[in-house]
């Protein structure tokens, strides 16, 4: 049976192979890294794709590289070592900053970059994506002792986000 760590190792390989310029785990699994287990079914990975001459952002290179290694695409996911993974190109300056400042953690000997909790909260509170579930997850994270409340306040103010 594949191991969760093996899927994380593939992310690092993708970065080494320049298929991804940078990555960081985001979404519910990032919450799990920072606080308590929550139900989720996939791994969201925030990414910067390598520079390209095309103005259109496409995940074709990602899917091709993974497909050549036997990892199949299913709808908007790719199943890597048994784990459905969704690659999310950074969509704005907040996502860029979340990616740039991600923490390097260790999972069973495998290094993994994870979006810091203050940035996860800010991403959950972005206008246009504020669903009740995302607000609930922001609230769950916000009460975690791992959150730097001063950094969070500064971040929300700088990006004009409301709790």
């Amino acid at each position, binding site marked *: 049976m594949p191991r969760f760590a093996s899927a994380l190792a593939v992310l690092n390989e993708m970065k080494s192979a320049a298929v991804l310029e940078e990555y960081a785990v985001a979404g519910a699994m990032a919450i799990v890294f920072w606080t308590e287990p929550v*139900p989720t079914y996939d791994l969201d990975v925030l990414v910067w794709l390598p520079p390209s001459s095309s103005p259109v952002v496409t995940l074709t290179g990602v899917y091709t590289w993974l497909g050549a290694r036997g990892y199949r695409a299913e709808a908007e996911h790719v199943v890597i070592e048994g*784990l459905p993974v969704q690659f999310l190109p950074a969509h704005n300056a907040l996502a860029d900053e979340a990616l740039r400042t991600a923490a390097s953690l260790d999972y069973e000997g495998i290094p993994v970059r994870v979006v810091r909790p203050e940035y996860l909260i800010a991403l959950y509170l972005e206008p246009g994506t504020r669903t009740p579930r995302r607000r609930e997850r922001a609230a769950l994270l916000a009460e975690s002792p791992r959150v730097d409340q001063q950094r969070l306040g500064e971040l929300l103010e700088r990006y004009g986000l409301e709790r």
Partner: protein
Amino acid sequence: MSDASTSRRRPSRELLEQLREGKAQLRAQRRNLSLAEKVGAVIELQRACLPLLARQRPLRSWERVWDLEP
């Protein structure tokens, strides 16, 4: 007719605080699990939640119990 809402026995404030404290302790324990234990807990949550979710709506292709070891 008696008013059930006024005659029903209620828990004391101390009992409610004790219950909330117990819940907070449980959550703190779960926060302090190792990362591998947390991934194991996510898989357990998937086993518990998916049948309930499936009763409410069709499951999406990726909504399944992860076939992997933590």
